């Protein structure tokens, strides 16, 4: 008997089999969803050492003796929350840093209210950030600290380092947009066309939910459909459900963005691309990237749809430092911080890089890393394989 072109019998048999599996799964899922779930995020203990308006400085309690001279300050973006770095035990950038003996500080930007709508980038960078950096410097009696920025927080860190190079020992930027003139990411295409003045006039602060909706719209197939199909397929798995809920908690915990900051970020960044050209002005001062003379480690994701490589990779070629390194990881915007695979690569890379510089050694990156990366040293690009 000839084999039919369309294996209808097999498809139907598979359907029937899966229908039974789905029934069993639904039964189990009901048990899972009705029991107590561990969905707490940001469980690592910390204390608040500094507060100014809505902004807080978290200091994480070391779990091993501190092994580095310079403390590390992490600056998260104003979009979403810094809790992403401490989603759960075993998938926590914060805990990984602590395990390596880093003295870790992190800025919690809080939830801007309507009264914060007039706060500019200058207020965040030369106001809150500068006060916090000074606080840490005084606390440790050190002239300089290490600074690590994430996404928009990375952009703030770049601006801060250019304006205050004497206060920063090493700069680490992760998924940080500095070159906005790229058509690799949809955000870069869309933002060029929006009337940001009218947006800010209408909303005051940019509503977090509105921004989140925009992010979902970037990939509806994956973020609105496939993600939840995946949940349905695994909802009988307690551990999966807990992780999923943690991620949902983080992703939809979206503070509003102060209106004036959003306006300047879109205008000077996405629409005029001033930062990478060293033409951006913050608080009346020009942000000259050539003044960034401290070592710079620039990490970004190859498949980042929000801040694509094109938005990140020009930074190291534009700063004044002679010790720069680019690391392109084969993952997306969030995967760098939360995927189990990159947990094993991302933090150790930063820690080692900081350690080399903390001890006064400046080892140029090319040929050193165990991961697949692109290393840049003053315009000299090398692709390094494991």
């Amino acid at each position, binding site marked *: 008997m000839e084999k039919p072109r369309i294996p209808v019998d*097999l*498809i139907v048999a598979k359907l029937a089999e*899966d229908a039974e599996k789905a029934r069993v799964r639904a039964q189990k899922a009901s048990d899972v969803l009705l029991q107590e779930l561990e969905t707490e995020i940001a469980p690592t203990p910390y204390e608040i050492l500094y507060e100014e308006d809505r902004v807080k400085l978290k200091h994480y309690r070391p779990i091993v003796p501190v092994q580095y001279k310079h403390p590390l300050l992490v600056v998260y973006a104003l979009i979403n929350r810094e809790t992403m770095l401490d989603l759960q035990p075993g998938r926590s950038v914060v805990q990984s840093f602590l395990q390596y003996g880093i003295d870790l500080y992190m800025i919690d930007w809080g939830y801007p209210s309507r009264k914060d709508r007039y*706060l500019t980038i200058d207020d965040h960078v030369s106001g809150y950030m500068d006060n916090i950096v000074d606080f840490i410097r005084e606390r440790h009696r050190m002239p300089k600290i290490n600074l690590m920025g994430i996404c928009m927080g990375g952009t703030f860190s770049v601006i801060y380092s250019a304006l205050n190079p004497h206060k920063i020992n090493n700069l680490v930027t992760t998924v940080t947009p500095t070159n906005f003139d790229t*058509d690799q990411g949809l955000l870069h295409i869309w933002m060029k*066309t929006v009337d940001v003045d009218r947006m800010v006039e*209408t909303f005051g602060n940019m509503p977090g939910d509105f921004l989140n909706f925009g992010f979902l719209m970037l990939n*509806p*197939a994956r973020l609105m459909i496939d993600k939840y199909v995946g949940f349905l397929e695994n909802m009988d798995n307690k551990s999966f459900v807990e992780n999923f809920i943690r991620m949902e908690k983080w992703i939809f915990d979206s503070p509003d963005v102060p209106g004036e900051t959003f306006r300047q970020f879109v205008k000077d960044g996405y629409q005029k691309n001033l930062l990478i050209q060293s033409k951006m002005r913050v608080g009346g001062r020009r942000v000259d990237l050539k003044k960034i003379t401290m070592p710079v480690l620039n990490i970004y994701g190859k498949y980042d749809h929000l801040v694509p490589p094109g938005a990140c990779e020009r930074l190291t070629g534009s700063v004044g430092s002679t010790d720069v390194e680019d690391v392109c990881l084969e993952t997306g915007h969030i995967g760098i911080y939360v995927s189990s695979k990159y947990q094993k690569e991302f933090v150790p890379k930063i820690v080692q890089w900081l350690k080399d510089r903390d001890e006064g050694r400046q080892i140029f990156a090319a040929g050193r890393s165990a991961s697949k990366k692109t290393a840049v040293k003053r315009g000299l690009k090398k692709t390094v394989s494991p």
Partner: protein
Amino acid sequence: MTDNRNAFADSENLLSAWIKTASDFWGSMLQSWPQTETDRAGSAASETDNKEKSRSRESFETVLKTWQTLSSVAGDTGAMEAVSNLGHVMPDVLLKMVRATWQGVFNLQQQWIEKAGRIGQSTQAYSFENLDEEVFRAWTDVYEKEFRQFFYTPQLGLTRTYQEKFNQAADKFNRLQAVFGEFMTIFYMPIEKSFKVLQDKVAKMAETGELPEDYNAYYRLFIKILEGRYMTLYKSPEYLSVMGKTLTALEEFLMARETITQDVLKGLAVPTQKDLDELYREIYILKKKIRKIEKKQ
């Protein structure tokens, strides 16, 4: 002709006589008023009542005097003739009035017909072969060209500003609905097209006997196609244009709604968002100044 003249003379006399009788009657009524009023004043009527009576009497006197003036004029032969001529002229006047009114209604109707005709012209610009794709765009266009201006007709009177704001909000809401429909249509397109592509691919796989047995494979294929379609759509100038229009419409509606809310809150003596924003700005500037001074110290 002679009959007509006689009839005219009779009607003239009749009108003259009626006016005289009426004049005499109301004249004597007026004369009798003071007596009645005095009698009442003598009784327990209050002062306020008297004032009211005086006002009534004044009004009555004014009317009567006007009547007397008119009737004295009416006594004049020429005037009577002119009044009598009304009988001949009246049909013409009425006809002219009716004609003017009719013309007005007709013009209005014609304007509406023209508008309706233009709706057709507007929609012709879109080929209705792709009805569901074009219909929202066409409706937006028709609304903007033919209906929108009704919300911007000048408002009159004390409440004109409020009415104007309300009309504007209504217009912005309508526009948002229209543009949002257009947005949803374009947003739905990749789903529709992905199904078509999936069908084609499945047909091809069926031809070559490569159909997957696991139906999940079809789903994964669909999601992959859908993702690609959205990426293509999102980069297209059409999408950027519709997205821009939708955002603008949303923002304009929210702003229009805010102005109405502000009026309501003002009436309730509750601070408006604008009031608060002004206050926040002042606080912001003050805080900045204080921090600057603190840093200098």
